[in-house]
């Protein structure tokens, strides 16, 4: 290429914290970040999602202490008595710090499952490289806590809930948790990750990085709900490595935050591995929600599947970027990707970039994309049966989104997401007025 790298965004919002680093790995990451800056609009991967909102603030480190009563109340609201996830083992972070008092003890986790806090034993691993990804670099420089889960070979660890709670703190804060999950051969785990910050009025920035290593024949299902506060910025990055005959199933439901991005890099490194990267977003107001994925087929006979659906009201904007990269060795790759969007109001916008980059000849890869409005004929049919307009719309939108949540294998997680979705629908799809 003949270009000079375009200058990135200023690091001013994090300047003091980046300047005060001591650890060599963190300093190196800060150096990587300083070289390129935070991604600007000329960076192809950030063409559609503008991070100017980050520049508006100076983000400080949150206080490790928090209001316990508020935390309990928030958790009870998330997991009411008798709800699907109430009884499952739970790990809770508050403003980026692992809260031992709110979390399951090591002893109460299933046998063969170990959980360490990142704060007590920091370990960055090699999957997420700060040199390649400025948001990983930022996380590496500033990560203060997180969970490090590992499941021993052959162990079925069942379901574990990981909650990242934002509570009101002093001023605009940012937290950069670093999580890792490692599954041994033939192990299995369902991780239900929830990012919630319902009552926080100040803007905050949640910048988690999760690395997953899924060994031979292991099965990892990762289900995530993003329900951050209305002024929050949520930029999450997941790096997964999937070994031979292993499966990584990922699902994200995006409902909250002013600006959100869930970015998954899944590398299929062993033969006959499979990855599913699915997701849905229901956005309103002036929300911007971005689901980005890079699926790298690095071995023969692997399968990747991706289904993403977006529903947009008001002036909301959704971004979908999905890249399937098939390396020369990855013969017999089977890749399929579908993204669809419903625009429910004149001010809404969808930008999609499904991308295929293919270097092997014996492959079957395809993608499809559709964008449109609700089907007037269906709407009329419902109304002719006596269902009011707003209700009819809600039924159709719910049907559109539930077709994706159905892809979640774990029943408890699926029920939980459907409940969250139903509540969000009542809020977002009300009368026809804000819609058309």
């Amino acid at each position, binding site marked *: *290429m*003949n*270009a*000079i790298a375009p200058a990135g965004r200023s690091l001013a919002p994090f300047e003091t914290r980046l300047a005060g680093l001591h650890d060599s790995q963190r300093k190196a990451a800060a150096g990587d970040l300083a070289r390129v800056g935070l991604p600007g609009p000329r960076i*192809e991967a950030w063409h559609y999602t503008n991070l100017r909102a980050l520049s508006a603030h100076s983000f400080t480190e949150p206080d490790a202490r928090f209001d316990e009563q508020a935390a309990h109340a928030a958790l009870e609201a998330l997991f009411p008595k008798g709800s699907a996830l109430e009884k499952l083992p739970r790990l809770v972070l508050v403003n980026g710090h692992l809260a031992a008092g709110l979390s399951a003890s090591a002893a109460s986790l299933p046998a063969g499952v170990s959980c360490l806090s990142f704060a007590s034993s920091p370990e960055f691993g090699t999957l997420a490289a700060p040199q390649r990804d400025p948001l990983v670099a930022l996380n590496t420089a500033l990560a203060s806590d997180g969970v490090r889960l590992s499941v021993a070979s052959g162990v079925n660890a069942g379901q574990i809930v990981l909650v990242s709670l934002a509570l009101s703190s002093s001023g605009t804060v940012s937290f950069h948790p670093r999580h890792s999950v490692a599954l041994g051969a033939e192990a299995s785990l369902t991780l239900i990750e929830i990012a919630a910050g319902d009552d926080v009025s100040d803007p905050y920035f949640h910048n988690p990085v999760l690395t997953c290593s899924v060994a031979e024949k292991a099965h990892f299902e990762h289900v995530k709900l993003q329900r951050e506060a209305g002024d929050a910025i949520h930029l999450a990055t997941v790096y997964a490595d999937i070994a031979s005959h292993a499966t990584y199933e990922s699902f994200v439901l995006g409902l909250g935050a002013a600006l959100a991005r869930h970015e998954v890099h899944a590398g299929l490194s062993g033969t006959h591995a499979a990855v599913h990267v699915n997701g849905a977003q229901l956005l309103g107001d002036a929300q911007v929600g971005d689901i980005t994925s890079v699926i790298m087929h690095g071995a023969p006979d692997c399968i990747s599947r991706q289904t993403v659906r977006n529903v947009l009201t008001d002036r909301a904007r959704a971004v979908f970027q999905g890249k399937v990269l098939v390396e*020369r060795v990855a*013969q017999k790759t089977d890749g399929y990707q579908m993204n669809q*969007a419903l*625009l*429910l*109001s*004149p001010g*809404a*916008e*969808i*930008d*999609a*970039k*499904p*991308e*295929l*980059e*293919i*270097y*092997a*000849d*014996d*492959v*079957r*890869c*395809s*993608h*499809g*994309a*559709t*964008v*449109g*409005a609700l089907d007037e004929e269906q709407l009329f049919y419902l109304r002719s049966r006596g269902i009011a307009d707003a209700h009819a719309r809600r039924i159709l939108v719910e049907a559109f989104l539930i077709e994706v949540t159905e892809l979640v294998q774990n029943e408890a997680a699926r029920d939980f997401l459907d409940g969250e979705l139903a509540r969000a629908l009542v809020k977002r799809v009300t009368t026809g007025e804000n819609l*058309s």
Partner: protein
Amino acid sequence: MPAVTETREQVEKLGQSSYKWGFETDIEMDFAPKGLNEDTIRLISARKEEPEWLLDWRLAAFRAWQTMTEPTWAKVTYPPIDYQDAHYYAAPKKKPGPKSLEEVDPELLRTYEKLGIPLHEQALLVGVEVPEGEEARLPVAVDAVFDSVSVATTFRKTLSEAGVIFCPISEAVRDHPDLVRKYLGSVVPAGDNFYAALNAAVFTDGSFVFVPKGVRCPMELSTYFRINARNTGQFERTLIIVEDGASVSYLEGCTAPMRDENQLHAAVVELVAMEDAAIKYSTVQNWYPGDENGLGGIYNFVTKRGACRGARAKISWTQVETGSAITWKYPSCILQGEGSVGEFYSVAVTNNHQQADTGTKMIHIGRNTRSTIIAKTISAGQSDSTYRGLVRMMPKASGARNFTQCDSLLIGDRCGAHTVPYIENRNMSARIEHEATTSKISEDQMFYCRQRGLSEEDAVGLIVNGFCKDVLRELPMEFAVEAQKLLQISLEGSVG
């Protein structure tokens, strides 16, 4: 030998084992000195006896270009280009117009013969008078651009009787200054992008077409572009204006001699379609692609854009891209008029070390605008081919529709095929559908054909032709033949 390997080799042969248009014509040329500065531009403008406004327009473009950088987002790589190391003007030495074929430079005639232009048409090409009635048998009017200069335009008389202007753009500047001044740069502004700015500064010739209100152009219009001289860039500029209810079909063919250095081709094409107008623009691009080691070949950096200004206007781009070392090209449509229609049909074949990054932009501005994109990509050898396309629905594009189908075929495991669509929708009633597939020629298909007695080469030709059918059928007959030859195919459509 396994079938796959053989197949690959057949196809590698098929692409350009013999680039048969790689001859060079030895003609006395008039060159501008190497290099690019304001003096070069003043010289070009003076040679062409241009009015002041055009020189000013060129100089403004040049100044804009100096502040710009080459685009780098395309998936192509090449060593830095030294823009000072080329001639920006090269023309056959001017002599008084020939009276008969005997007086024409025989080398020039031989060139046309090799290009496959029939002899009586050659006579027209070099400006020899043809008896009345002779013209009527010939279906295509030709403008030939040789290096930087349009050498001849045929069928002037028939066309002018219909009210159609078809002439070199340099001549249009002289004879129709108001039209040129009104439309030049109105679709692709002088500072639109790096290559377009360069073209605006140094363009030397190209074709000009004007079809007045209500006129269906009585014949296909065609331009042959040929780069011949060494160390020259070719920067032609084409401007086609079609008024209300009028229509035209325009064909463009390109060749260049084999050279071991790279040559730059940075053209601009602007189309303007008014109410109910229709423009069909077809290209068979066969610039020299370089040899099997990637040496030489044309750098083809082209900006083509059409504006559907009036209601129900229609612009249709069809391209068969088999040549060039590097292709950077996105024929686009600005769909402004209500109910206007944009179409893009493309076949891009790359082989050896060729790189192509090509596609389209469909910008839907008006209500009920429609666009269709059919792109077929075939990669062989060690080549890389990318489809890059933008579909944008603006807020007022209510009821707009787009359908996109991109299919890639890989032949061999050393090439790459990529699909990069950009889909942007800001109108809730607009609908976009996009589909893309990547595959190879299946072994089942190859075996089936061979069991019926077809050689591997014929089988590949047949299957590739079938793969491209939806695009090839959009080409006018005159070009379909050439394109089919280029894709090495046989007798499609003999029944029916």
